[in-house]
């Protein structure tokens, strides 16, 4: 069976609310070129950190390598996107971007193709995911991150990850201080300097039923979810700590934005060593829209319930409790390496033990200012 879907949204829906923040001339001047994104869905055996393999569904970009989570997609606010999804799996699948109204596609039958054209909404961090048989399809691999960047940075003020009308006084104060304040010597935040951290959990009993084609049974089993693997960007433990795309790295004074997303069913409690982070955005629970925060709280541990997305500014400051008289260190050598791990320590296991082969990675300070 082969079915083709082509959904096109008219101006009303595509003109996402946030665009009204930008003045006409600025928008016209900054309008990024249209872009085509094509994704494929296929079945895969995914190797866990202990060498065992589980059945999952994976996205790939075109004919590229499939991965769980799917590849990171970077878009600009106001950009016209034609998103095409080709389903190579033996089960129907759909696609949605929660928090971006109107972007919905499917179900796409096996061997079918679906497509949607939309205008990119407000800047921030998003999921693309398969909402069908929720939470089964996303839990079993069909999720990935979308980064939406502002169409233009406001002239004369520091860059932020958000649109001019979206950034709060608190966010503007923080980003104005970076590289420009006694507490944050170094550089301002550079657009694009970020790391995406997608969290997930795996209960292989569920994957096994899905592999055997018992999707109803697999969905039922999510009600008694007992995960045995805990991943960040699909990796656990030492694998995540060695992954270039996962590990933030830089010198003191090179602030970086962390974009954390939780695709799973457990509430994670990420804890970072070495620096506190400043939480700048989260989602509105009811609509999944990006909410830029004004009360910019410094945290070393933050909550990530299912489907939560948070942006957190990692200042890459000198770790504050190194005695001033011992900085820069002479006997201890750079790089300084610090972990980030979930503090619901259950997540620090794999297959019931093997601490810390769970949701953990490192971040690296390569040198002083």
């Amino acid at each position, binding site marked *: 069976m082969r079915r083709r879907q082509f959904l096109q949204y008219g101006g009303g829906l595509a003109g996402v609310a946030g665009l009204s923040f930008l003045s006409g001339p600025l928008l016209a001047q900054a309008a990024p070129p249209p872009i085509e994104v094509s994704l494929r869905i296929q079945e895969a055996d995914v190797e866990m950190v202990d060498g065992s393999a589980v059945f999952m569904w994976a996205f790939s970009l075109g004919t590229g390598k499939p991965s*769980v989570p799917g590849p990171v997609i970077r878009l600009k606010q106001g950009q016209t996107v034609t998103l095409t999804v080709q389903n190579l799996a033996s089960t129907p699948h759909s696609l949605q971007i929660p928090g971006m109204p109107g972007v919905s596609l499917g179900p796409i039958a096996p061997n079918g193709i679906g497509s949607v054209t939309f205008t990119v909404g407000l800047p921030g961090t998003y999921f693309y995911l398969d909402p069908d048989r929720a939470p089964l399809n996303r839990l079993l691999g069909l999720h990935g991150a979308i980064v939406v960047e502002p169409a233009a940075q406001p002239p004369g003020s520091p860059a932020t990850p958000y649109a001019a009308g979206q950034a709060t006084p608190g966010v503007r104060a923080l980003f104005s201080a970076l590289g420009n304040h006694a507490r944050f010597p170094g550089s301002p935040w550079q657009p694009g300097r970020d790391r995406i951290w997608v969290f997930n959990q795996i209960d292989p009993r569920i994957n096994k039923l899905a592999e055997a084609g018992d999707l109803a049974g697999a969905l039922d089993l999510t009600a008694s979810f007992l995960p045995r693997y805990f991943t960040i960007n699909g990796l656990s433990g030492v694998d995540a700590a060695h992954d270039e795309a996962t590990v933030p790295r830089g010198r003191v004074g090179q602030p970086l934005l962390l974009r954390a997303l939780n695709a799973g069913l457990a509430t994670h*409690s990420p804890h970072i060593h070495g620096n506190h982070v400043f939480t700048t955005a989260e989602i509105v629970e009811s609509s999944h829209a990006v909410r830029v925060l004004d009360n910019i709280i410094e945290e070393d541990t933050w909550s990530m319930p299912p489907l939560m997305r948070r942006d957190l500014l990692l200042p890459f400051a000198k770790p504050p409790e190194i005695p001033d008289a011992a900085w820069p260190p002479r006997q201890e050598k750079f790089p300084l390496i610090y972990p980030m791990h979930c503090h619901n320590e259950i997540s*620090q296991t794999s297959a019931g033990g093997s601490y810390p082969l769970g949701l953990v990675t490192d971040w690296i300070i390569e040198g002083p200012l």
Partner: protein
Amino acid sequence: MSTTIPRPPTDPAEYDAFGCDPNSDVIETPDKVSPNIRLTRKVHGSFDVTMPDGRDVRFWGFVDPNTSGGDRTWPSPLIRVRQGQIVHATLDAAKNTHTIHWHGIEPSTVNDGVGHTSFEVSNQYTYQWQAKTPGTYFYHCHKNTVLHFEMGMYGPLVIDPPSGPGLLFERHPADEDQATDLRYQVEAIWSFDDVDPRWHELNHSAGLCGEDAGLNRFEPKYFLISGVPHPRTERDPRVIVRARKGQNILLRSINATYSNLDIRIGLNSTIVEMDGRPLRTNPQLGTFSKPIPVPAKAVTNLTPAQRTTFMIHNVQPGRYEVTATYKDWITNRPHAAGGLARTWIEVT
């Protein structure tokens, strides 16, 4: 099956060093400067705590060998230092290996107490750090943390301003808020915890080298505040807060559970500090946060390891209920065995 997504290739030695066989080559503290304060924490192997149903549950902890009589405390004894002090804190690991991570304190890598980025401690190591920001922290073992933390190897840590306890932090001329009273006359330090007795029968290295010790299954049966199991929390003086009319009360709350914790306080309060950072807007200091008012009985959620400090100004006579609901990290519903601890604020 069409496709395989393999793990990235990893050197087996690095794989082992990350978890099963970590570095335990303890070095002399590098870049040592002279301290303002010295303290010691010694690992105490094993002691029992009797739960309300009569069951004795085994715990481990840290003791202060310079204080007598403190060998059965859980949580481990409070550490209290002042802003600006350089701290030399010696861990005496006794037998086996352990570490201390100073949670929320951010020292250099070797002083951070994490095995895979530095070393686990056999015998002794002296950690060095300088207290910088007044607030609420805790310290805990970071070896096989999933188990050692549940076994009780943690204690609260408070950084006071230079003037000491009684003041949350020193007012700064550039603080946007110059009005809020930052002094307190009554203080509680509440460490919330939940205990799955099955875990307390395990060996200290359970699960470490590939064995399935069931450490992904956490079914707590006891719900505690500062080592006191509910319902004893309703009368135990270590938990109950007693104040007099007109006083300010500071409630430092530490989520030492593996649960989503909902706290409800029976009178209006203000969150004034989180994770060791005062909530303040101060352009000169580079802080951008504001205190958060919390109406009586409203829920404040604490994720595991988060600290939230509530200030209650000018309390009026009455008996006010405080509840903590311990919710499963997957279902987000209270644990089957109750998932509740209750205590009281009594104002006369």
